């Protein structure tokens, strides 16, 4: 029963990946895992771009994806550096330990 792959398949996969990423951000109690989850969300979006571009015969989706990947790389670098700094500070990776920036 495997019909041809349509755009909907890609969008569905993308939605699932995005949901996994979102759930990871909300549910996991480790900053590194949360960062990974954000990467998953970004890649879900990338998949959407590429798929839509592919099916509509445009290159724009791929171009945007390169930008997103660049930003994601930078974000990962900064994010990991921050996490290391935070860990040195508190000896923990739980986000609940870092709530001093509040009212």
């Amino acid at each position, binding site marked *: 029963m495997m019909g041809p792959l349509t755009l909907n398949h890609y969008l569905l996969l993308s939605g699932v990946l995005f949901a996994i990423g*979102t759930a990871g*951000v*909300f549910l996991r109690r480790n900053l590194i895992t949360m960062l990974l989850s954000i990467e998953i969300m970004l890649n879900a979006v990338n998949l959407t771009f590429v798929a839509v571009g592919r099916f509509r015969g445009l290159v724009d989706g791929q171009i945007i994806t390169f930008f997103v990947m660049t930003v994601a790389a930078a974000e990962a670098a900064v994010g990991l550096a921050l996490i290391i700094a935070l860990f040195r500070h508190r000896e923990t990776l739980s*986000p*609940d330990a870092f*709530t001093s920036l*509040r*009212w």
Partner: protein
Amino acid sequence: MLLLIPLFPLAGFVINASLGRRLTKSISGGLACAAMIASFAVSAFLVSGILGEHAAPLEYTVFEWIASGSLHVPFTLRLDHLSALMILVVTGIGSLIHIYSTGYMLEESDAEYARYFSYLNLFASFMLVLVLGANFPVMFVGWEGVGLCSYLLIGFWFRKQSAADAGKKAFIVNRVGDFGFVLGMLLIFATFGTLDFQQVATAASTRAVENGALGVLTIATLLLFLGATGKSAQIPLYVWLPDAMEGPTPVSALIHAATMVTAGVYMIGRNAVLFSHAPVTLSIVAAIGVATALMAGTIGLVQNDIKRVLAYSTVSQLGYMFLAMGVSAYAAGIFHLYTHAFFKALLFLGSGAVIHALGGEQDLRNMGGLKKYLPITYWTFLIGALAIAGVPLLSGFFSKDEILFRTFTANNPYRLLLWGIGMVTSLLTATYMFRLVFLTFHGERRVSAHASAHPEEEEPAAHGAHPAHGSDRGAHDHGHAPHDAPPSMAIPLIVLAIGSIFAGYVGVPHAVGGSNRIERFLEPSFEVSAATRSLEAGAPPAVEGGPVRPVAVQETHAADTEGGDHGSTEIQLMALSSGVAIAGIVIAMYFWLWNTAAADAMYRRMHGVYTLLLNKYYVDEVYDAAIVQPIKLLSTGGLWKGVDAGVIDGAVNGVGQTVRAASSVLRRLQTGSIRTYAASLFLGVALILGWYLLNAR
């Protein structure tokens, strides 16, 4: 060359103001005197150049000051006959007073001494700009500049509260007048499109004389006159001048008697053509002048402070000058200005010598019998008093008589009333001046332990460690006999005394065989100059003899040709006013020399009048109640507590409090937990997306 006249004192000011702290007294004082004398020499040289019959006025444009559209104001100095007389008075008498000051101010510290002379030089510079200015704005520069220097010098001993207050009072009262002056200036520009004196005069001369109606010329001249009342201390703005006596005495002599306060008179003389075309204004000028003369004369009769008597006398004499201006006797007014400068400067310097000799005593009740201690001061003071009283053959006699004669023959329905009040004031003048002479120099010496008699006089000493700083009284030894003026002070006194005797001889009237040279000398300044008239190509030739010339000038010519009738009137009036002057002196002799008990009895009998006069008609109190207190009340209750504290502060504080209240609730959102933030972000995105998706179809 013309620029050098105000530039010399300005240079003196710059040097003394910047380096004065490091200069010794002889250098800073000598520098200031040298600047004035140099300025006087240049003035004399330039004036000699324009003395000829048909010599044109000198003019020098320093730079183009304002050029904006049709407004075109060059910084031009112009030397004509009127300003020639003025610069000679300012630099001549100014030099003498500078020399006098080197002796008078010797007790100040070096820095204070230099500060004093820098102000004095700055004043001279501005005064010269005022009289040399060829248009209204340049004159206004000088006008405001002398006002500033007046403020600085009245408050020279600013550590003393009363001196600081007097300076502020002079400055603020003058601002009221200056406001009128500026408005008048603007109205003239709006009407004539120019601010040059000659061009304004030419333009005004082509207009009809504004009889009765409240025309634009009348309003403009009234506004200018308001400026003159401020500067020249006339009703209603005269109140600052008596208080100005808080300044050093030479300042009172130079600024508040001889030069600055005559600026208003000069300004009207400068705009004689303009004022001649507004008879309503002239009548008001005459009325205010004579009212001021009488009022100040009566106050002067009972004051006990030697300088205040002289201050009221100045106000009174300025009233005479305005009376002359008001009856279109411009030359007579300027003539009186000129003679008055001599004898009033002399009287003030003489009083300064007395104050100096007594170590700061200014109260007449503590003087007396000084004749034998201060012979030079006594004799010179006596000459000044005789001159101001109008005793025949001294300078004041000729000028005052000229004014009274012109008033008597003026073309004014109230001329006899004006003349009558003028005569009464003349009597008062003689009386209060000789009261001053007798109380100061004659009788028994009443100098006693005045420190205990007048506890308020000790006040300044309490303020600062330096007694000479806080007050006019020096650090003299009261035990010693008073000493006469040192040479630096005595020489100016003698020169001024000689001037007070002979200055009047330039204006001996025709009636007694003189030629009244000053009137003919000044005449060209009061009419439209030939040069500008020829520029006015369209002006009909009929204008020449007609409305171009002020009324007084026409009358002079009438007097010249058919002088017989007027001549005898003039001689009769002269005899009368001489009689009045001598009567005044005799009255003073009776009350304050022969029968001093009578004076006391008189004071007791007319207690109400005496108190009224002693308190200067309560004008200061009335002004305080009518103007100062309401403004204070409005400012405190309305503007300060209402508008400022209520509305403006309220708005500012209200904004702050609203934000604070709102944020005390809203800041709860800032939990610090990343999870919460992420959740709200997610929720927000979901809501927005959901909303769009729902509305998509």
